[in-house]
């Protein structure tokens, strides 16, 4: 019990007295915002991570079958693995084990929300119970390896979004994060809904527990626009981090011409965007290739499939200005 101790107590009493004296003035500090939401601490899964390069994609299989070396710009780079139904779960444990062995970070896309296409429950899980089961199996398949999950592209953005879907998504976030994974809820892209509208939906969908959100998945908005839009949104959802899908945005969005529907579906003018990388810009965790480059958008633009299309892949490579001239030329001549 020394004088120093007593001085400390006296100082604290003084501060407390000052506090009481100023108590008549309203508190001007900014409380957590919104105050009733408690955000989980960020895990920063991409910090110092190496992205996993998937060797078992439709593109790699086609490359092997056809000896197409010109596809290397795509197949040698990290991509996300889509889990579009319980059938796709089978390959997950092998991929997770391989990623762990190599010390790399795997990225998955969960894409099985009920009424996925807003077409009267024809796509996705038949009901909420089936979706919950899918999630349980996904958690089991992922095992103890911490992964990154991009949760349900378009689910929160779609016209058929409602509070019930929000609850379902929030449950999914909870299930995956409590198993140790980092979840990025899909937020659409910069020319779809306003950040305010999406922020409200993401808050309903459990963004507070998630690591953040994903921007531009399967779309072609520029990285600059996506970043600006994402920053605004991040500010509205508790400064969560976000990732941008740059798989196909190298040429920016195709002109929005309502008379030609092929512009948005397998457009002729498109290019690989920036290669997947961990970034150090504020709130932007990583640029990723989430949509598989080369996968057809559907039966449009000369395509008759939703699967891998060498034409689309060669278009993407040939137009990517950041690639070496030789690689682009090889792709151009291959098609």
């Amino acid at each position, binding site marked *: 019990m020394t004088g120093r101790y007593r001085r400390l107590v006296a100082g604290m009493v003084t501060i407390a007295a000052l506090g009481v004296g100023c108590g008549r003035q309203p508190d001007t500090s900014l409380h957590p915002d919104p105050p009733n939401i408690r955000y989980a601490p960020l895990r920063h899964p991409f910090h110092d991570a190496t992205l996993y390069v998937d060797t078992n994609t439709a593109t790699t299989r086609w490359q092997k079958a056809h000896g197409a070396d010109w596809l290397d710009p795509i197949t040698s780079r990290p991509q996300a693995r889509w889990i579009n139904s319980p059938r796709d779960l089978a390959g997950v444990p092998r991929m997770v084990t391989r990623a762990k062995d190599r010390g790399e970070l795997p990225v998955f896309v969960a894409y099985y929300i009920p009424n996925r296409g807003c077409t009267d429950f024809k796509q996705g899980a038949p009901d909420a119970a089936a979706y919950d089961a899918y999630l349980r199996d996904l958690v089991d398949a992922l095992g103890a390896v911490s992964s990154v999950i991009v949760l349900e592209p378009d689910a929160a953005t779609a016209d058929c979004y409602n509070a019930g879907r929000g609850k379902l998504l929030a449950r999914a976030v909870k299930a995956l994060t409590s198993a140790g994974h980092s979840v990025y809820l899909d937020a659409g892209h910069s020319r779809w809904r306003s950040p305010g509208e999406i922020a409200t939906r993401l808050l309903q969908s459990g963004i507070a527990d998630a690591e953040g959100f994903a921007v531009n998945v399967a779309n072609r908005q520029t990285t600059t626009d996506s970043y600006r839009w994402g920053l605004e949104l991040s500010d*509205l959802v508790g400064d969560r981090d976000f990732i941008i899908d740059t798989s196909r945005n190298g040429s920016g969005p195709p002109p929005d011409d309502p008379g030609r529907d092929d512009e948005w579906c397998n457009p002729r003018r498109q290019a690989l965007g920036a290669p997947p990388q961990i970034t150090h810009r504020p709130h932007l965790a990583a640029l990723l290739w989430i949509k598989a480059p080369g996968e057809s958008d559907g039966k449009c633009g000369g395509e008759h499939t939703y699967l891998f299309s060498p034409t689309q892949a060669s278009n993407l490579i040939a137009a990517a200005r950041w690639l070496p001239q030789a690689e682009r030329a090889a792709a151009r001549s291959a098609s």
Partner: protein
Amino acid sequence: MTDATLDLPDITENARAPSLRRQIRRGAQTWIARHLISLVILLALLALVGAVHGIGMSTFPGYVDDPGTYLSQAWSLQYEHRLSPYSYFYDHAPAGWIQIAAWSGLTNGFDRYDSAIAFGNECMLIAKLVSMALLFVLGRRLGFGRIAATGAALLFGLCPLELVYGRWTFLDNLVTPWLLLAFVLTYSPRRSIGAAVGAAMAFGMAALTKETALVLLPAFGWAVLQNLDRRNRPQVLVTSVFAGAFLMGLYPLFALLKGELLPGPGHNSLIGTAIWQLAGRAASGSVLDPDSATADQLHGWLQYDRWLLLLGLAAIPVALLVRRLRPVALVLIIQWLVMVRGGYVPFMHVINLLPWSALLVAGAVSTIAGNPTLVPPGWLRAASGAAHRARVGVAVLLTLGLVTVTTVSWAPRLRPMMTVTQEQPLHSATTWLADNVPRNKVIVVHDSIWTDLVHRYGFNPRPIMIYKLDSDPAVRDNLGRVDYLVVPDWYYRTGDAAQKYPTLVEARKHAVAVATFGAGTDRVQIYRVSDHWKPPT
């Protein structure tokens, strides 16, 4: 000796001319003795109506658009010596908020309550009680018996519709006492020049409080002419017309001195805004057209009470039979004609109908009863016993019916108005802002909480009133950023929100609700706008 002789005249003089104080005291004593019964009745009326009006006025009715504007202008006058915190654009003549500012200056009004609206409620309570007392006096001067005058005061004081609109801080509620005072002085039994000048100036104050009072000039003029006395007619006319015109002329003079009388580029003007008020505003249509906005408004009023308005209409023909009641009947006729005209009718226009309806209903029953001071002898006043008794019987039945109907209809409506306990959502929002938002954030607010945020909580830069956000070029040009939006949901829900409030609607697209108060269209959501969004320039 000399001392004694000097003292004597003093004593006699004292005996002849009593001291001023004693004179006043004696005068007051005789005045009170003469009016004792009326005074007792008035005190009881004031207590009753004051209680009904005052209990629950902070929680009912909900906040609406205009009161906050007038209170912010009163605040600006008291603390900044300006007519408005924004550039004054002659939307209304300023006497209304000058009176509010004067009362606040005398009593420190804005510091006595935790919200400006609550202080406005107090002002309205005072205006209501003064109006009711003047209505009683006017009834007496028109020739009503005490029962009829009390009836008029009660009809006005307890009508649920009047309670709703009388609690809101509207300029019309401040016009009512001045108009009633003008008529009270016009019907002064002495017919002195002083009373006439006072009447003209009271009418001038009514017009300066809200310029719409000018439409009643024919009715007021008729009342003045009816009460002229042959002995001082020219003097009364000249002095009262001069006094009234002088007082009202101050307003255009003020505009002229500011160089804002006539419209011109780059400045507001009295004439320019007047043209807009009269012709530019979207017409709400005639009340006779069932699809018009005016008809909708009437329907909205009738939901609170249908009796007083409709009985007032029914009383007009009876009142027109009586010479002394005709100018008062004309007041009500003009106020109804305003709604038939087809121009813009503000939703608080009902305030101008109610006191005169109450007066005419009481007057009509008195007329039917054959009150001798009201109805001159002749075919209107039956002299013979049987007819007289029949009329008195009808009047008694009418009175009983009136009492029954109003009691049955009004009591259940008044009760919830006095017992609502839910805090006003905008008031809760103000407290939330004070607790959670740094003072340097730019907040777009509903006008009803602007004064509190500036005066009580010291937000700096000052919040921006929503209706100024897109209408005041000075605000638009200096809008660097917007951090919070605090307006009731009805702003977003109106069909033309994107045209009327483009910046508000755009800002909300970049904002998220951080707190919510209340429910329905009155719900107030506090939106925080993203730091990364800037208003388009």
